């Protein structure tokens, strides 16, 4: 059978184990951390080409036939998301080698990073509802520890909120799975899709669908379940925030797109208007929250919420074009967001804080950083020729075609506000002069005290660590530019992914191996 499907799960696991066993050597951890992510990227490219050319790949774990065993399925959608993990993972791993302090790395930063990547990939590739739960938890436990790693005081309150809300989401997920199993007697995606298409009365299925909506909605941070995100994401170091922003919420989006396109399609008259409303409100609330912020990390965290709305909008319109746009948008926003957080991380490192009022003069100090920020920010706001433009353009076109004018208007307005708050960061942090004179080039953080011995201590910036800071930013910004310039082939691929979601027959046949 096909080992390729499980490679994106195995490679991070091997890297995690290797870095865990070589915990004492920071150098070895850096090397393994980076090569492991590079290998993951290579495997994910390989997987995408294989799926693109050869159709859906399936691996039945342990040789147990579906629907009894656990299937891993790679269709175009999954493969694209795995590629996203590969790109983001590599960028973060390189960045972390410079930006994550030594106590954190000694405790096991890199093993946790790779376990997180494994969980994310597992969630993208699994073909089984319960297995999805398991990957969610793998991901969550790694992210919990990453969130509090370092033990700084500010981290705790944010982490408690994050853990509580996500645990609740997991419980609702479990209850939903229980109801669904009681109704259908299976939890395999393909088998579910097949059995539910044969079911006449969808009452209980709707109950379970709504439980899943809430569970995934919490993970994806859609309205009204987003409040935990702006409180917890800004707390850890920027490398970790970038990782979360790039991947964790996207797993929630992926789960929503996956389940509500191949499994819960029996009552679209009910679910689609619901999604459209949620999408609109999520966008507006997120962006209004962002406009009100004056601290970079919090501001960008609110934007995460706002952008999730666009992906949801695609799910609400539910045409081939809309789903294709939603998938393209998810890929785009993960990359652009991660790039922005990496830039912010460097600002925090240089200045010791990220409060917009006190920042300034960054354009003069580091023009390269300014340009990188500008490219990523314009892409996020949706200006041509960047990826954000084509993503939003596709979604808006889909909205116009299906005559959902309200959501289109909201999407365009929110886009303007996004641009506005990006120019705010640009103006405050990069353009204006530093208030109160030019600061020293490299502010050192406060020395550790008895009360708080773990204040993040960074090594001084050398040429090598500067390179480690900038290479990942270049990488991610380049990807978002290329995604814009090569929108045609990428949209063709996301279109294929959308086709597979809308016509699950192929998916069902590949997994169950029979003519349904």
């Amino acid at each position, binding site marked *: *059978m096909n080992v390729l499907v499980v490679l994106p799960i*195995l490679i991070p696991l091997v890297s995690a184990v290797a870095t*865990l*066993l070589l915990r004492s050597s920071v150098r070895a951890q850096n090397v393994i951390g980076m090569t492991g992510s590079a290998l993951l990227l290579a495997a994910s490219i390989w997987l995408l080409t294989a799926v693109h050319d050869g159709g859906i790949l399936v691996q039945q774990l342990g*040789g147990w036939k579906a629907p009894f065993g656990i299937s891993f399925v790679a269709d175009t959608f999954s493969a694209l998301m795995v590629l996203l993990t590969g790109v983001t993972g590599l960028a973060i791993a390189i960045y972390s080698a410079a930006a994550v302090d030594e106590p954190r790395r000694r*405790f096991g930063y890199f093993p946790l990073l790779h376990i997180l990547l494994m969980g994310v990939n597992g969630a993208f590739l699994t073909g089984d509802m319960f297995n999805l739960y398991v990957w969610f938890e793998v991901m969550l436990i790694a992210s919990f*520890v990453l969130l*509090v790693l370092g033990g700084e005081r500010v981290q705790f309150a944010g982490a408690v909120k994050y853990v509580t809300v996500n645990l609740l989401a997991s419980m609702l997920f479990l209850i939903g799975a229980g109801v669904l199993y009681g109704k259908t007697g299976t939890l395999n995606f393909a088998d579910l899709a097949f059995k539910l298409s044969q079911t006449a009365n969808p009452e209980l299925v709707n109950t379970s669908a709504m439980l899943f909506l809430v569970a995934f909605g919490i993970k994806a941070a859609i309205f009204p379940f987003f409040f935990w995100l702006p409180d917890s994401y800004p707390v850890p170091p920027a490398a970790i925030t970038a990782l979360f922003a790039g991947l964790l919420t996207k797993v929630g989006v992926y789960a929503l797109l996956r389940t509500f396109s191949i499994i819960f399609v029996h009552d679209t008259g009910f679910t689609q208007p619901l999604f459209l409303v949620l999408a609109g409100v999520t966008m507006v609330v997120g962006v209004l929250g962002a406009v009100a912020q004056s601290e970079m990390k919090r501001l960008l965290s609110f934007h995460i919420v706002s952008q999730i709305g666009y992906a949801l909008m695609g799910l609400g319109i539910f045409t081939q074009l809309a789903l294709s746009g939603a998938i393209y948008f998810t890929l785009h926003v993960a990359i652009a967001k991660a790039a922005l957080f990496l830039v912010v991380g460097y600002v925090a490192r240089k200045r010791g804080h990220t409060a917009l009022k006190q920042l300034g003069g960054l354009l003069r100090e580091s023009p390269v950083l300014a340009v990188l920020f500008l490219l990523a920010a314009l892409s996020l706001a949706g200006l041509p020729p960047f990826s954000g433009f084509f993503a939003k353009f596709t979604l808006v076109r889909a909205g116009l075609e299906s005559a959902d004018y309200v959501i289109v208007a909201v999407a365009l307005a929110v886009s303007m506000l996004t641009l506005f708050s990006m120019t705010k960061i640009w103006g405050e942090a990069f353009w204006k002069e530093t208030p109160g004179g030019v600061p020293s080039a490299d502010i050192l953080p406060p020395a550790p005290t008895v009360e708080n011995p773990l204040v993040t201590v960074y090594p001084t910036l050398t040429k090598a660590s500067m390179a480690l800071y900038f290479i990942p930013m270049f990488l991610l910004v380049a990807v978002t530019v290329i995604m814009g310039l090569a929108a045609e082939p990428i949209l063709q691929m996301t279109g294929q992914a959308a086709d597979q979601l809308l016509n699950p027959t192929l998916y069902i046949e590949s997994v169950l191996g029979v003519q349904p």
Partner: protein
Amino acid sequence: MSAVILRIATKYLSPVLLIVSLVLLLRGHNDPGGGFIGGLLAASGLALQALAYGSARARRLLRYDPRTFIGGGLLLALSSGIPALLSGEPWLKGYWWKPELPLLGALPLGTPLWFDIGIYFTVIGFTLTIVFALAEHDEREEY
């Protein structure tokens, strides 16, 4: 804190727990038991030591850092999939090997057992990482 009863009890209980944990680990494939529950029992044996004599002693008995146990255990569990990969079967497909031993009869060994031993060590490592983190107030290394 001088908990005499706890200390005496620990002296006898903790080896028993370790042995029972091994029994559970080995019989898990036909009867209730397995790597997880065995690992938990073994970890509780060491946690008792930590309670009665302090976690420094439990750490000494463990010899390696519990996180190394997590890594080693995962490595074992992971490598149990390799025979399947080599023979072109799906990853983690089970293989059994039953050598005939004198007097004892057939001894079933297989990759599921191998996997379970990995889980056993991972669970010991994880549980003790948490137990030590809870027991050691002032060690700032943790979290």
